[in-house]
């Protein structure tokens, strides 16, 4: 497909790879919102170009490095990438889990990330386990002036909440959505009292129904190896992948009549309303229109 005309999607910062993946002198040929692009590091400086018809470098667009990832945009964003002060805290480990391609709408990937009700069924023995399937009440709000969705006071019993967990625990959660394509969760750290571990996904929408997902963890954990941490998160994410690729319709329906008003879906309903209010169309289900995610 060709580049989207959806200005809401275009005017966001998007992560398109880790600094290591786009190591100095080596290019990453990829795609963003239907536009083929080339991302490279010129010394420490990230650069992004549209790919010309002959495969060469065309128009250049802004790029910057945050949280070990290269962020870029095809439009003119009003707000910078999200602010995560936890990245400055001593003692945390940043785990870059590695990009994974998913044939699904970015919006479905974010919505699934926010959903606790699937834990016992999809992440059995790790993030949940039958018969404990109930999602407890939680609070959900839009926080201004940054226009972010926050779900707080979430909790769930988890047999293996993190790579560092020895036993099951009631994990407390907060979820944050800072852009249609960027979401982070904060969950009870099993090893440091009162601390949150962070897990986030930067979803790079390549086409309406295909994404690269850049997952990171920012955790307190002095004992697990990097392989332990990567395996833990990849297992969870790849359990979701095969389910995400089979959702119908591929695009996320935003029409209120498509919502099923059950309490566990509070964050999902808020996310869909928030997207609708923004006027986002890329990756949504739009009835019989031919240009929708398919």
């Amino acid at each position: 497909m060709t580049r989207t005309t959806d200005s809401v999607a275009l005017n966001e910062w998007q992560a398109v790879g880790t600094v290591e993946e786009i190591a100095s002198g080596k290019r990453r040929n990829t795609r963003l919102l239907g536009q083929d692009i080339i991302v490279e590091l010129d010394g420490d400086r990230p650069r992004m170009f549209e790919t010309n018809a002959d495969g060469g470098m065309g128009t250049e667009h802004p790029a910057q490095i945050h949280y070990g990832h290269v962020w870029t945009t095809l439009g003119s964003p009003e707000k910078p990438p999200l602010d995560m002060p936890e990245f400055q805290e001593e003692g945390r480990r940043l785990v870059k889990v590695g990009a994974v391609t998913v044939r699904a709408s970015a919006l479905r990937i974010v919505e699934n990330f926010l959903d606790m009700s699937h834990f016992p069924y999809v992440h059995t023995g790790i993030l949940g386990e039958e018969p404990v399937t109930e999602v407890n009440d939680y609070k959900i709000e839009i926080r201004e002036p940054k226009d972010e969705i926050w779900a707080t006071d979430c909790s769930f019993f988890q047999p293996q909440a993190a790579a560092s967990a020895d036993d099951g625990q009631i994990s407390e959660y907060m979820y944050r959505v800072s852009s249609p394509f960027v979401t982070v969760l904060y969950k009870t750290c099993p090893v440091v009292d009162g601390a949150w571990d962070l897990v986030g996904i930067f979803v790079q929408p390549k086409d309406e129904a295909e994404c690269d997902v850049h997952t990171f963890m920012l955790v307190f954990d002095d004992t697990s190896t990097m392989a332990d941490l990567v395996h833990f998160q990849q297992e969870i994410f790849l359990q979701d992948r095969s389910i995400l690729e089979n959702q119908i319709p591929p695009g996320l329906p935003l029409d209120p009549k498509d919502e099923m008003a059950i309490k566990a879906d509070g964050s999902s309903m808020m996310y869909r309303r928030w997207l609708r209010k923004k006027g986002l169309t890329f990756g949504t289900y739009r009835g019989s229109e031919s240009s929708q995610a398919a």
Partner: protein
Amino acid sequence: MRLYDYILSGSCYKVRLFLSMIGKDYETVPVDYYPGGEHKTPEFLEINPLGQIPVLTDEELTLRDAQAILVYLAGKYDADRTWYPEDPRLQGEIAMWLSFAGGEIMNSSAARLHDMLFYDFDIDKVRAAAHAAFRVLDDHLTDREILGRHWIVGENPTVADIACFPYVALSGDGGISLDDYHAIRRWISRVKRIPGFIVMPGIHAN
């Protein structure tokens, strides 16, 4: 006994699955295969000069190749010798399907690595080759069903079934549909009902 393991590898899963089915305890050593590329580091090449996983160590023995590991485990730890029978004819047939599992079926693995983790394969070519392999397996399983047999070789599940199973069951990850392979789909359901069956990401319990 230690298994050098990657959670998303269907080849490592062959070994985990079989150890679960025969009820044998073991330790895992997680290898940061992706994105770390740990299997290509000098330290890992000391363990397996081919730079591949899985690798199994058991006392003094170090074995690479999932198929070789399955044969060893079945020979050593399955007292009833049903998973790798002693009959030379069955052993020959099993060896044939083990080779197929490590050969033609691996086109499904290549498609998955391409679609999921950015490996540089000719995707149309590997998908077509995977379909050709699945057609061979589906025809074989159909013939077996006509004889009242439910497994690839003999009257019981053998290491041939375990070796062939993962990358057939994971084919959807590489954009390869099993819709046209009815005997394969029935066989997948049967494998999932073998006592000790375990899942991996991309392979569901039912």
